[in-house]
């Protein structure tokens, strides 16, 4: 309640939100109104400025904290930074601002990003000067690629009167380093400009298409006293950009879709972000239109739906088993990341592209109908237009097509289930990774959230359904070490859903420090490491490029083996305060999963280090290790 009162008095929340917060906390409506009445005089005493605007006077660090509150921030993610002293000082009397200390900026930023993705709420991630920023930039890159609205801040260690002298932790033009990875980057010129700089950073990050932003200022601005400035709520500066598509283009798109022989819908993350998955389902059903998804972060369509045809194996629609030759393709909210020269959508199909991110339209794929729009509005308008064109004969054709798609879907489900027929299915020590995945899918709650940074595994058997079923948080940026942090952030945002983090050993070791946050914050996440002691993806890709070459002939691969000594991820977890164990067989796995469930029910995170097989070309039983040893060079036993 103290927090709610503080937020109300600081105008971070409205009267209505204040009452709602109290009633949600269990206070009766009558009692909540009584509390509100009791603090109204205090609120009025502060009400010299117009609604949403107040004049504040204090240190630069306190101005920073005040603006974060006004911008709607609840959690702040940061790593210890000496020059943020006055900000920390300000936190003591602002309990509504919760500071989460992360022991490394990278996983800390991943945690912040996970929180934003799972909550839809703003946050900021803070680093110490350029040295901390450098650690965070990997996740800044991820946020840029994934269009995550995340605000980054770090001060410049150099102070205003000594900048430019190649000082300690100083680099010239610090704010420009992040330029290509941010939507907005700015260095505040005065202490009283700190709040405005922050407001613009939040506004830019949260105006579609989303993306990371960066705010910075000289460190002495934080220490400056008597700074007088305006603190303004985000609602007063947010353009609330929600764009309806061009009506003429909507009509053209609707006509193409109803007249199509075989339309195909590609779904994307803007559906998840705008909570519009149900609208996409409605339109697909209206048209009897098969649905697929090229690589994205979320599962944006119910995978058990009769119109779901699976994902294209090689990324392009040509690699879809069905339908083979769609004549109209409609992508909604998917950037369509191209990794090869062939367009994902073949030139032969008429392409309708609905997204808010107009900058990435038409770059590779020629577009018959561009629909720049908030996809929620766009789908509403397009669905209405399609309904207006439906005739009895079109409905009959739609029904026939839906039956055909349903038939394919049923056959496909049967074929996907064949994964358990692998002759190595019961293999022990190490296990088959597909078996591990399957067991986890049997174990997971019906509404579990799967955070997935085990990029090379096939994520089968989960049956994701963003409409109340299991959800997926994959990655798009691929700066590794994000999985554990993301899972921690997701659990922070969604404490009442099971969160399972799947991570490869290579990815895990880039960012395990967020385990410590799980332990400290009592975030009961189940982390499962697919540990084959190898970089198997690069192993296979390198062999494909050097088939029959010297590496294969000699078995000398320099780049892929992580064993000898083997890393024990359960021991690493214990070092961070998280219980865990190593498992080598399906039987051990089931018992371990039961222990993981018990731990999480009790509020504790748990880690399973699952030993899985290295599969592929030219893996030796005991892979070669480059003979680099210092023992022969030692002449003293020191």
């Amino acid at each position, binding site marked *: 309640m103290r927090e709610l009162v503080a937020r109300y008095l600081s105008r971070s929340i409205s009267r209505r939100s204040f009452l709602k917060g109290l009633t949600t906390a269990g206070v009766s409506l009558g009692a909540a109104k009584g509390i509100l009445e009791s603090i109204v005089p205090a609120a009025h005493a502060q009400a010299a400025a117009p609604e949403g605007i107040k004049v504040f006077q204090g240190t630069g660090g306190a101005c920073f904290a005040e603006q974060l509150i006004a911008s709607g921030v609840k959690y702040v993610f940061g790593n210890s930074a000496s020059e943020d002293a006055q900000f920390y000082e300000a936190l003591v009397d602002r309990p509504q601002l919760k500071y989460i200390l992360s022991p490394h900026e990278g996983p800390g930023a991943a945690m912040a990003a996970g929180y934003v993705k799972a909550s839809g709420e703003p946050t900021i991630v803070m680093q110490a000067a350029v040295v901390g920023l450098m650690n965070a930039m990997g996740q800044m890159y991820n946020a840029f690629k994934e269009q995550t609205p995340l605000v980054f801040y770090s001060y410049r260690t150099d102070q205003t009167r000594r900048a430019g002298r190649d000082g300690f932790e100083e680099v010239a033009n610090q704010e420009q380093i992040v330029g290509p990875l941010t939507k907005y980057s700015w260095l505040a010129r005065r202490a009283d400009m700190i709040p405005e700089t922050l407001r613009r950073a939040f506004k830019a990050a949260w105006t579609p298409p989303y993306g990371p932003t960066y705010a910075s200022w000289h460190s002495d601005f934080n220490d400056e006293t008597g700074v007088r400035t305006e603190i303004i709520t985000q609602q007063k500066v947010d353009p609330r950009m929600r764009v309806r598509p061009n009506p003429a283009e909507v009509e053209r798109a609707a006509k193409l879709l109803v007249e199509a022989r075989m339309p195909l819908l590609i779904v994307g993350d803007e559906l998840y972000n705008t909570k519009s998955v149900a609208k996409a389902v409605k339109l697909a059903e209206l048209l009897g239109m098969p649905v697929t998804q090229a690589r994205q972060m979320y599962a944006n369509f119910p995978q058990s739906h009769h119109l779901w045809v699976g994902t294209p194996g090689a990324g392009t629609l040509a690699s879809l088993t069905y339908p083979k030759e769609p004549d109209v393709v409609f992508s909604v909210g998917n950037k369509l990341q191209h990794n090869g020269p062939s367009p994902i959508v073949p030139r032969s199909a008429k392409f309708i592209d609905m997204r808010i991110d107009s900058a990435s339209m038409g770059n590779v794929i020629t577009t018959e109908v561009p629909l720049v729009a908030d996809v929620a509005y766009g789908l509403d308008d397009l669905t209405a237009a399609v309904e207006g064109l439906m005739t009895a004969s079109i409905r009959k054709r739609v029904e026939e097509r839906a039956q055909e798609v349903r038939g394919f879907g049923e056959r496909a489900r049967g074929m996907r289930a064949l994964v358990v027929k*692998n002759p190595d299915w019961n293999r022990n020590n190490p296990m088959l990774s597909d078996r591990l995945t399957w067991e986890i899918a049997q174990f997971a709650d019906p509404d579990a959230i799967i955070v997935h940074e085990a990029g090379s595994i*096939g994520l089968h058997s989960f049956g994701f359904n963003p409409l109340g079923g299991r959800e997926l948080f994959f990655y798009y940026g691929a700066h590794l070490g994000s999985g554990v942090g993301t899972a921690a952030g997701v659990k922070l945002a969604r404490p009442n859903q099971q969160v399972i983090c799947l991570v490869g050993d290579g990815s895990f070791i880039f960012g395990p420090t967020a385990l410590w946050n799980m332990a400290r914050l009592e975030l009961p996440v189940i982390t499962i490491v697919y540990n084959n002691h190898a970089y198997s993806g690069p192993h296979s890709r390198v062999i494909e490029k050097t088939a029959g070459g010297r590496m294969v002939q000699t078995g000398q691969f320099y780049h892929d083996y992580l064993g000898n000594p083997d890393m024990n991820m359960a021991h690493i977890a214990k070092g961070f305060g998280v219980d865990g164990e190593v498992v080598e067989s399906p039987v051990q796995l089931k018992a371990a999963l039961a222990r993981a469930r018990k731990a999480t029910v009790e509020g504790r995170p748990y880690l399973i280090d699952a030993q899985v097989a290295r599969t592929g070309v030219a893996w030796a039983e005991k892979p070669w290790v480059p003979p680099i040893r210092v023992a022969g060079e030692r002449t003293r036993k020191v």
Partner: protein
Amino acid sequence: MKDAIRRPGYTGVVLAFLLVFPLTILSGVAHAQQAKPTGFPDAPGRDLLLGRCFQCHGDGIWRDHRQDQRGWEGVLYRMVGRGALWTEQEIGTMAGYLATVRGTSTDKTQR
């Protein structure tokens, strides 16, 4: 080459002899679609294999792998886990073909 530096971590995982699964679209895969497969002599199952596997893969990955039918079945079922849609009969046919032309006793110089 940041990408090259970061690629390793994709793995940490079991991984696959073949590289693809539905949500992991790795560069090179799309190129593979246009590759003309070589070194696959005529035998029952050849057309099926070329029609199915070369949707996603080029021929480089196959050259150095030799194993029996059971081993090839293991590979093909792992591809099912990555989204491949095949029947048991198709898997058996393809594994039989691979065991013939990429079996343990097959000459590695065969192209």
